[in-house]
Each structure stands twice: as structure tokens, then as C-alpha cells.
């Protein structure tokens, strides 16, 4: 190990000011601090520090996302072979999914980190870890048949215009991954909605050639509800089989890569809550808000299929659970006061269901609900802080 350290020490002068590779200082620094804990000591104030840092925190979120990713990979393969009517077994399905999803991860990280490194160098900053999470989220929230170049364009747009222009990690107003998704959604609507993008019907790297079976339908459950002409909330899977709560919970259904399985998301949620990285207040409130609003629509709503969709199904189908666990709890873009988190979370759940039920254009409401509440989070905090100020001013009168 000391050989590695020696190599780094030998290379270091080249990257420092005046060295011939000075342009790559931030990159070098990023790799060095990735390998070794920085040995800078405190210069003022507290002499000892907690072992926690933003690397550890961000990596934990990535770890929490792994179950959803693995399940998503498997599901991509599973749906594909279902669509072409072949039965190839678990590992072949997983391999297909793995090969289908991997390019998304590479493109997302490649584009995002490239921009991040460049900006860090221009500003003379350290490379910040925020994109580790964002880059991992992006492949999980896009439909599997999205063209890669679109993902690249959307990622670049989001990282530059939703994050770097605001000042980088910790300064952004909108959740960067969701901006990527929103960009795709609004810039390329024909690709991002409808029935054809959710299940990969073609082959991947020559794997999984086959003809679609006749019974195949690639629409997501929420997509079916939105286009339903009847008033019954009747949804079916890829092969026309009826779907219930447990199907949504397990997640072998069409949808964005990581959002389908509530179980996989639940594992991630557990990890986030045990470690305290995500706020249980936000997470709980999103589900509470969604459940209450869906219940209201179940009983008093318009006579449409989606309004009749049982409230518990709303929570497990579509991106609701994924958004609640991984997107709403993003500490930077969510409300930052403890009271504010309840309000913020509740309104996300509330708005998501309203958009799902009342807006015929968007079958999924989670993305828009979270982005909308990102705007309102500072306002919520403003009132919570204001209440604190008023309470403290009152003391003078007593």
C-alpha cells in the first residue's frame, strides 16, 4: 500500500501550481481524496471532528440504491423475454438487463462527472460527491428504451443548468436527477410516453433476438389507467394478466428501470432510515399525503379509472415509492427545517396523486410534484423560521 502512496506523492508535484499538469489539479485531488482520507487538520475552532463526511454519506445513498438497480436489471430482462415469449432462466434474463442498463450508467456518469470535473477545475474547487448519487439515479428513472444520446443531452443540461449555475452540490434548487427526467419528458415527449419505451423489445448486444408475441402490451399500469375509457381501475401486465397490489409491491411490471419494485425500494429505504441519511419525517409524510389524497379520490373523486384506483395501489405502482424514498428526501432540495419536512413531504404525496388523477396528460405525477415542491421548500422553511423568530421576539414582552 505504501507503494501506492509513494506513486501519488511522486505524481503530486506535477499537478500542483506551476506543474505541467496543473490543469488537472482538481481531478488529481479528487482521486487522491478518493483513495486517502485528506490529512488536513483543523486550523481553527474544533480540534477533533466526527468521522462522517460527504463521501461516506453519498456512498451510503448509492448503496441504498443498489437493490433497486439489481432488481431493475433483472426486470428489464424478464420483461424482454416475456415479450418475445422465451423462457431463458434467471441468469440470462439478468445478463440481458445488465447489458441493457449498463450503457445508461456509463453515459450518465461519463457526462455528469466530466462536467463536474471541468467545473471544479475552472472554479478551483474540490470535486464534490453530489453527482455520485445523481449519476446513479438517472439510469433508474428513465424508460429502458430511451436513446442514449438523449440521456447524455439531458444529463448535461441538468448538471449545468440545474446545479452548476447555482453553485454546485448543496446550492441547487431542483433535484438534479429529476431535472434530467423532466428534460427528457418535455423535450422528447414522443419517446418518453406511450407504450413502446418501457419494455425493450429489440435485442441488446445481439442477445435476446426474437419476435414479439401477440398478447404483448408494453404500457405501464398508470399509463393504462390514464388512457382507460372505462371507469373501472383495471390494469394488466405485459401479457395481459391482471395486476394487483402484490404485483406492484414485487415489481415484475413495465416501468422505469428502478421504480417498479416496492420491495427493492423498501430495502434501500430501511438502510437510509437506519443510518439517518434520509429523513423519516419527509418519507413518512409523502406516503401519508399520497394515501390521504388517493383515499379522497376513491370516495369523492371523478368517475374515472384512475380516481377509482385503490389508494394502496397508488403507493406501489409507478414512481411514487421511488420518489418518496430517494427523491423527496434529497436534503439539499427538500425543506430543511424539521417541521417543514412534514409539510413538504405531505404536499408532495398530495400533489402527486392530484396530478395522476386530474391531469389526463401525465399518467405519472411524482416527478412534477417533487419539482413543484422543490420550488416551495424555501417558502415552507421561511414560515417555519419566521415562527421561530416571532416566538423568540415574544419573550421580550413577557
Amino acid at each position, binding site marked *: *500500500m505504501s507503494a*501506492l*502512496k509513494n506513486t501519488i506523492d511522486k505524481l503530486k508535484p506535477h499537478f500542483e501550481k506551476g506543474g505541467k499538469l496543473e490543469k488537472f489539479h482538481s481531478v488529481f485531488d479528487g482521486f487522491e*481524496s*478518493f*483513495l*486517502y*482520507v*485528506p*490529512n*488536513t*487538520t*483543523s*486550523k*481553527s*475552532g*474544533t*480540534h*477533533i*471532528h*466526527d*468521522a*462522517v*463526511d*460527504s*463521501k*461516506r*454519506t453519498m*456512498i*451510503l445513498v448509492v448503496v441504498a440504491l443498489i437493490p433497486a438497480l439489481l432488481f431493475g436489471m433483472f426486470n428489464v430482462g424478464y420483461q424482454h423475454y416475456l415479450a418475445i415469449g422465451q423462457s431463458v432462466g434467471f441468469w440470462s434474463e439478468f445478463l440481458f438487463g445488465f447489458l441493457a442498463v449498463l450503457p445508461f450508467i456509463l453515459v450518465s456518469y461519463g457526462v455528469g462527472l466530466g462536467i463536474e470535473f471541468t467545473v471544479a477545475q475552472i472554479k478551483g474547487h*474540490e470535486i*464534490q460527491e*453530489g453527482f455520485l448519487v445523481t449519476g446513479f439515479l438517472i439510469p433508474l428513472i428513465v424508460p429502458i428504451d430511451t436513446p442514449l444520446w438523449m440521456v447524455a443531452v439531458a444529463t448535461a443540461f441538468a448538471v449545468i443548468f440545474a446545479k452548476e449555475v447555482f*453553485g*454546485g*452540490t*448543496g*446550492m441547487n434548487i431542483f433535484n438534479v436527477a429529476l431535472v434530467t427526467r423532466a428534460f427528457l419528458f418535455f423535450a422528447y415527449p414522443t419517446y418518453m410516453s406511450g407504450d413502446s419505451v418501457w419494455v425493450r423489445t429489440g435485442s441488446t448486444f445481439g442477445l435476446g433476438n426474437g419476435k414479439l408475441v401477440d398478447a404483448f402490451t408494453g404500457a405501464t399500469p398508470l399509463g393504462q389507467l390514464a388512457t382507460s375509457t372505462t371507469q373501472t381501475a383495471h390494469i394488466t401486465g405485459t401479457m395481459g394478466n391482471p395486476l394487483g397490489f402484490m404485483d406492484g409491491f414485487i415489481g415484475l411490471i413495465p416501468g422505469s428501470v428502478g421504480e417498479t419494485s416496492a420491495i427493492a425500494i423498501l430495502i434501500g429505504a430501511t438502510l437510509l432510515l*437506519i*443510518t*439517518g*441519511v434520509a*429523513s423519516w419525517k419527509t418519507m413518512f409524510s409523502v406516503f401519508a399525503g399520497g394515501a390521504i389524497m388517493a383515499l379522497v379520490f376513491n370516495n369523492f373523486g371523478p368517475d374515472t379509472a384512475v380516481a377509482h384506483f385503490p389508494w394502496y395501489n397508488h403507493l406501489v405502482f409507478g414512481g411514487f415509492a421511488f420518489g418518496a424514498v430517494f427523491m423527496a428526501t434529497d*436534503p*439539499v432540495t*427538500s425543506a*430543511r*427545517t*424539521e417541521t417543514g419536512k412534514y409539510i413538504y413531504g405531505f404536499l408532495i404525496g398530495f400533489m402527486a396523486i392530484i396530478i395522476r388523477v386530474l391531469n389526463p396528460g401525465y399518467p405519472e405525477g411524482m416527478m412534477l410534484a417533487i419539482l413543484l415542491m422543490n420550488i416551495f421548500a424555501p417558502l415552507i*422553511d421561511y414560515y*417555519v*423560521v419566521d415562527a*421561530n*423568530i416571532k*416566538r*423568540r*421576539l415574544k*419573550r*421580550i414582552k413577557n
Partner: protein
Amino acid sequence: MTNLIKTKRGLDIHLSGKAQEIIGKTLISNVIALVPDHYNGITPKVVVKEGDVVKAGTPVFHDKNFSDMNFVAPVSGTVLAVTRGDRRKVLSITIARDTEIKYENFSIKAISGLSGEEIKTQLLQAGLWPFIKQRPYDVIANPTKAPKAIYVSTFDSAPLAPNYEFVLKGQISDFQTGIDALAKMTTGKVHLGIKAGSESTDFRSVRNVEITEFSGPHPIGNVGIQIHHTNPVNKGEAVWTVNVQDVLFIGRFFNKGIVDLKRLVALTGPQVINPQYFPTIVGSNIQAVVKNSISNKTLLRFISGNVLSGLQVTSDGWLDPYASQITVIDEGSEIHELFGWAMPRIHKYSASRLYFSGIIESKLFQKIFGKINYEYDARLLGGKRAIIMSGEYDKVLPMDILPEFLFKAMIAGNIDKIEVLGGYEIAPEDVALCEFVCTSKLPLQLIVRDALDNLKKEVE
């Protein structure tokens, strides 16, 4: 009946190297220094020059704004040098001390016969005033403004802090005199904060005070927290605070008529062999105190004060006038930890649940595997970032203040917001724990110090 105030928020950090209750031999360096930078909120005007002979209690410099406010020599001897830095800023005034300390004689009347104004004049003249600090701004008290109360916390909850009950043993009459003197200078009361459930018969027997008991984790011993919960400082008000050992200085002065700045200092920390208490004097060189008691590691960090809010000093630096503690820890700058962010690191402490500290500290774990000693050094253990995580600071600041928003206002220099969000109540030491737990490794105490200085300048 005494009042009891309980808090839950806060954090007790356990370091090894707590001082045993033994008093070692008196350790005073041959050269003593006064460092104007140790005092917040003053501009020094030096009144001695090289070669002058001084006694303990002779003025060495005074504040330019309050020329009555003297800063005096703690020992008798000869002025060695007045060291100046850039733009002739006074860095230190050093005095070579006599072996036997000779004291300046102050003819003193009994406290009962003195008015508050007279006491104030005496303290200013004798150089004991700088030991009285004030909230807001955490600076030396403004003598022209009467405080609404005076607070003395009789316990320190910081890591490895000295036990003041032990320190005070046998000196309760000086303490009582000090309290009586303080009481004359306020229209309100002198408040004594006592640790709930402590034995402390001495502190409980003090008269002429309002006693409040406090229980909870650090920073409950901080006087700022105690003020917040009993008589919070609002705009335009002032509260004075005095450390326990500094009350003794005032008491001794009025009992004996001399300025005797000797105090017990707890030498503590993981890198100290036989941590214990040593009698020394304000302004002594810490080398005299630590030289026989530290491990032979080459890279050590010496702290005048505790690990959270003390001052970093060099191995031959000076003890600051307010410190009752010296802490020595590993500097850690030679450590290169591979993949620290991914490792279990069971020897590292974290208040977050991203490490195993919570499990390691549990009773069950300690029963089975025994106690694990955490390793502490001065590294930041991470890179500096913008504030990312929310709610971290709230957990360790037991005040009705939203720390994150206050810090942001301070960073932005928004005076109006600082005023209403609690800027008048907070001192750097109160946010030391916030700085400790901060994921983004922000220098919060420095931010607060700068903001308070700025606030003082703008408001006054």
C-alpha cells in the same frame, strides 16, 4: 426549592485522558506572556517598555477605548520584550519573572462597604475586569452598561473538562466574596448553574445567588445554554458571565488586596501520561506544564482549553487567560487512511449512524466485547463542502434557535437576520458541537466569531 432544567439535545464525547484528582507541583514558566489576541473586543495600548520592573498587578497595557481597563502582569519581574507584528500590532508582552512573586498592594475595604461603582473601578484598575465577559458578542464586558444578570456556571461539560468542585476545594470563602462583589454590579441576580445530581455541597451553600440545576449532555455546562433557558438575552440587553476560577481571582482580590492569578489547570488528553491537575499562573508557557507529562510522539497538538473550543498553541505557546485546561492530542497529519470513506473504522467516533459508534457504545456490545477506545486526532476527516445535510446542528444545540439558518445569515453577513435568529445569544463555544458533527466540515466557530465582531461593529 431550586429550579431544574433538563435538556436532551447535545453530545458527550468521550476521550481518554481525564485528569485524576491529584494536584501536582506548581509549574510556572520563567517567562510569562500577555497576548492581547487572547482577549476579544479590545485594542491594546502598551504602557510598559523593555526593562521595566513590574509587580503582580502592575498594568502592562490597557484598552484604547476604555483607558481605565487595565491588563496587568500576573507575576513580578522585568519586561523582556514587547513583540509587534505587521502594522505594529502587539503580539505579546513577555516578562521574566522573579522567583518569589511580589504583589502590588491595593488597599481594599470590605465588600459590604463598597458600592457597585467602586467595585467596578477597583476591578478595572486591578486588571481583573477582563475576566468578566458579556453576552451578546462573547467579549469582555462593557463596564458602562449594567447587566440584567450575571451568570456563573459551576460545571464544565466539555470533553475532559476539569471538575470545579475539586478545583474549588478549600477556597469557598474567596468564591463567596467574589460572588458578593459581582452581585453589587447588577440590577438583577447572580445566577449559579449547578450540575443536577452532583454532590457539590460547596456550591450549593453559596449565598446571595439564584441557583439553577441543569442536567443533560454537553453543552449544558456552557453558560450560554444556561442563560438561554433562564433569562435569555434580547436585543439591547447584556448579561455578564464569569468562570469559576475567575470568580476566585475577584474574591482573593477583595479578601487579600492582591492580584493573585494562580489557578489549577487540568492537563488532559489521550497523549498525556498521568493526566492530573497542576497549579500554574495565567500567561504561563505551557511547555513548563506539559514537558514531563506527554508521550514522545513527534506530532502533537497542544490546546489551551478543551478539544472543542480551546485555542491551538505551539508546544511552547502561552496558556490563555481563560483556560482551566490544557489538552494534548495527536495531530494526525502524518496519517494516510486508505479508502476511509468505505471502511468500517470502528476506532473512529461518529455521532451519525453511518459508523458503528452507536452499536459500540451500547451496553450489550460493551458487555460482550468490552469498551473500545476511539482514536482522535486533529484531522478534519473529510473535505469542506457547502451545507448538505439538514438537521445535524439542531441535535447538538439545546437552544430554541435554528442554527443552520443563523449560520447562513452569518455567512451572508445579514445583520437583520442575525439579530432575530439568535445572534445575541450565541457564542462560538456554544456551536462547537455543531462544528464537530458537521458533515460539510465548516469552520462554524470562526464563522460565529467573525459574525459577532461584525455585528458589534454595526450595532454599537
